[in-house]
């Protein structure tokens, strides 16, 4: 870009905020003032507001996971489900009661000892809609999408383990040609 063109573009912008050149000393003093003000506000914050913030954080994290080809979360479905339950309930047993499911079944799902049944998933969708409506829109497909993304990714990343044992059962008599 030529200098002249660059200058014209810069003139068309109004820098509403530009604190790039603040001195280190001034920045440190300012950071201390911010921490003090935030600490005071945090003490005044209600438990309800904290839950809303955590729910919105969970939604953003789930969206990020669904949009990322690579991730480092182990067992994403149970990871996000644990976050959801622990955000709202002090005891996981109370979530099981609200969902009318056996606490043992919940524990098995949360600890990856079994997959959630359809009944569990449908109740989770309804429960989540009620929880999230106070803070943000929530796509009811989210839990299912996370569950199946985890399944598909796991299956595709372990092809070495299952492919040879599966291939021996499969032929394609119509399209397979020998050259």
């Amino acid at each position: 870009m030529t200098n002249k063109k660059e200058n014209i573009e810069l003139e068309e912008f109004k820098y509403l905020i530009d604190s790039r050149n603040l001195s280190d000393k001034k920045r440190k003093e300012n950071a201390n003032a911010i921490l003090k003000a935030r600490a005071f506000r945090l003490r005044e914050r209600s438990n309800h507001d904290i839950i809303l913030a955590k729910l919105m954080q969970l939604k953003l994290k789930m969206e990020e996971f669904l949009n990322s080809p690579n991730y480092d979360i182990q067992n994403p479905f149970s990871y996000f489900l644990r976050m959801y339950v622990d955000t709202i309930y002090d005891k996981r047993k109370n979530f099981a009661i609200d969902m009318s499911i056996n606490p043992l079944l919940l524990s098995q799902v949360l600890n990856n000892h079994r997959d959630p049944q359809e009944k569990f998933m449908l109740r989770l969708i309804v429960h989540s809609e009620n929880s999230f409506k106070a803070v943000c829109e929530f796509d009811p497909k989210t839990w299912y999408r996370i569950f199946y993304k985890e399944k598909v990714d796991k299956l595709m990343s372990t092809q070495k383990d299952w492919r040879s044992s599966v291939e021996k059962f499969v032929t394609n008599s119509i399209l397979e040609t020998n050259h």
Partner: protein
Amino acid sequence: MSLVDIKKESRIEIRLLAVSAENRGTGKTYEHIIGDLIAFACKYALRLYGELACVSLIPKTEIVQHYINKYGMYEAGVSLCLDGIELINLIKTYDHD
């Protein structure tokens, strides 16, 4: 817009915010550009830091009161900050994802 992630404070600082000429003043082409940009920073902070999330900026003196009134910010040092329920409300108002 330029953001700085200050991890040890769970804070995102908006260090630079600029809007093109056609999107300023009463005859602007698009509405809510500043709000949308701040909402982007708020979502970023909330995703990283949850209930501790905070977004701060150091505005020019003449727009301080406007930002307090319009975006629910509060003054701390020479900065304006946004956290708690006000941060969530700004996302709800300006985020159109």
